[in-house]
């Protein structure tokens, strides 16, 4: 079914910077030449907790930025929220510690061949992969608008340098502590009309992706969203990370979001079917 990413490598990457930024940690790792193979939307899978850890599964993190640094060589930057024990361990990892990571993983965002008007929608740390995407779109002469939402200001990740590649940037917060009070979905319809949006890219909590899908369908727009399902391996061997997704043949199947995703067309996903398998899903 899925064409498997053949470029992934398992490496030991050194942490060369780990800074707290708002509610997140901005972590930079030295990864070598492989940085060149990374496309916006790819993610990494990290072994957490060290040798005597009781955590046996890898943790997935979107790649915020990949670049070839004149000093440090290939580097990868992550934006990590200390959520449970694994991500907290990573946030607390000391400078120069070596991290066991596999990269690049997953399907990247599709970049249009022609210049288009693109809207990028991010929720929480979901903004991370959007800045690299914005740069790639800019390089194709696209118009790039961005909307970032979160519950509160400290959970908006929007570094100064990230803003350079966007034509406009709007913030929304549930508590009104930054930008417009409310959810990202409330400002999107107006933006679509005003800026003649032709494609939406999104990354963030599943409920947000679902809401954005609804809007994209209303307006008949393509919507590439990077989903976030619980993953045990990140490389396609465990089958835990599936979502019901309609294929080109119209048939819905349980697809692995780690190799058939994380970037998927929003309207292909059978949303909000958690805890049940929709009756139309067929086979594997």
């Amino acid at each position, binding site marked *: 079914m899925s064409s498997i990413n053949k470029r992934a490598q*398992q490496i030991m990457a050194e942490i060369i910077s780990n800074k707290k930024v708002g509610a997140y940690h901005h972590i930079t790792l030295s990864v070598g030449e492989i940085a060149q193979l990374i496309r916006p939307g790819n993610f990494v899978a990290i*072994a957490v907790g060290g040798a005597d850890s009781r955590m046996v*599964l890898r943790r997935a993190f979107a790649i915020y930025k990949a670049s070839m640094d004149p000093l440090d060589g290939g580097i990868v930057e992550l934006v990590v929220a200390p959520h449970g024990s694994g991500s907290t361990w990573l946030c607390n990892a000391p400078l120069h510690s070596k991290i066991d990571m596999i990269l690049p993983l997953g399907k990247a965002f599709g970049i249009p061949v022609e210049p288009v008007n693109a809207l990028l929608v991010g929720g929480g740390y979901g903004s991370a992969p959007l800045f690299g995407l914005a740069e790639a779109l800019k390089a194709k002469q696209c118009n790039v608008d961005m909307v970032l939402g979160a519950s509160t200001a400290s959970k908006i990740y929007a570094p100064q340098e990230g803003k350079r590649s966007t034509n406009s940037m709007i913030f929304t917060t549930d508590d009104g502590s930054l930008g417009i009070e409310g959810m990202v979905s409330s400002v999107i319809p107006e933006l679509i009309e005003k800026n003649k949006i032709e494609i939406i890219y999104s990354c963030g909590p599943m409920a947000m992706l679902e809401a954005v899908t609804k809007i994209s369908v209303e307006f008949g727009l393509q919507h590439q969203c990077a989903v976030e399902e619980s993953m045990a391996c990140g490389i396609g*061997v*465990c*089958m835990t990370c599936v979502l019901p997704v309609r294929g080109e043949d119209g048939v819905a199947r349980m697809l692995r979001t780690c190799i058939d995703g994380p970037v998927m067309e929003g309207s292909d996903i059978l949303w909000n079917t958690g805890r*049940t398998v929709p009756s139309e899903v067929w*086979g*594997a």
Partner: protein
Amino acid sequence: MSLPFNYSTSLGTTTLPNPILTASGCAGSGKELAQFFPLTELGAIVTKSIMLKPRSGRATPRMAETPSGMLNAIGLQGPGLDLFIENDLPWLADQGARTIVSIAGETVEDYAVLARRIRTQPGVVGIEVNISCPNVENRGLVFACHPDTARAAMEAVRRNVGGDMPIIAKLSPDVTDIVQIARTVVDAGADGVALINTLLGMVIDTRTMRPRLAQKTGGLSGPAIRPVAVRAVYQVREALPNLPIVGMGGITSGQDALEFVLAGAQAISIGTSTFGDPQAATRIKSELETLLIERGFSSFSDAVGYAHRAENV
């Protein structure tokens, strides 16, 4: 010792260049791992249990991490026998991989059909009969939990597979007496047993205050269950010293694998630890070889069951 170490092992009539296998359901279709190492490096690839019909498996959440382990409730998602024979098996054969096909049925008749169709496929060197999946619709249907159903499933397979193709019964640890079940499947014609499948477990989400997995229960795997698995292998070896045993359950290192070999395992399957380290199987292969050579063994088979030797040896 001047002779090179002999790492080969045999399961019934099949000889493998080394005893390291993937565990069913933990290596995808093989393609996913092939980017990390050539599949021919391993003794054999054990495929995800295949059923007659395509199956979409269980709803999500399908997994929960637990201390030194995980619960899964994949529910045997798979393409079904036809597509499996059309796509997956030829690809594995092309790679030169030795394939052990794991089969799972809902009825005794299913097992018969699956065995008959698989037996003649290219690259297949054995059949693992999964009669112990805890993620089937009706928990009462776990064939391996009752001698009668275990026997029926294995007889159906044996009737359809000649002596040239080893059939291995995969057993559940969730039984009062695993030796009794092992004896039963051997009586029914099994050439070996695979020990162990996952233990039935549950995690409750303290936020939603409901079972974490959509299916409520799931199978517990990983290092947490290793002592239970080693015990099962040891017990069955003690009772049936000539029966080939494929050992698995939480093996993450050559050291862990050695425990199973000493307990009596003729082959070793690597499951959950592949999720933490895609190269686990090849790493364990070389770690185990080193440990065996360090201990003075000149062949792998000399070490199998060595923990059972008399007190004074």
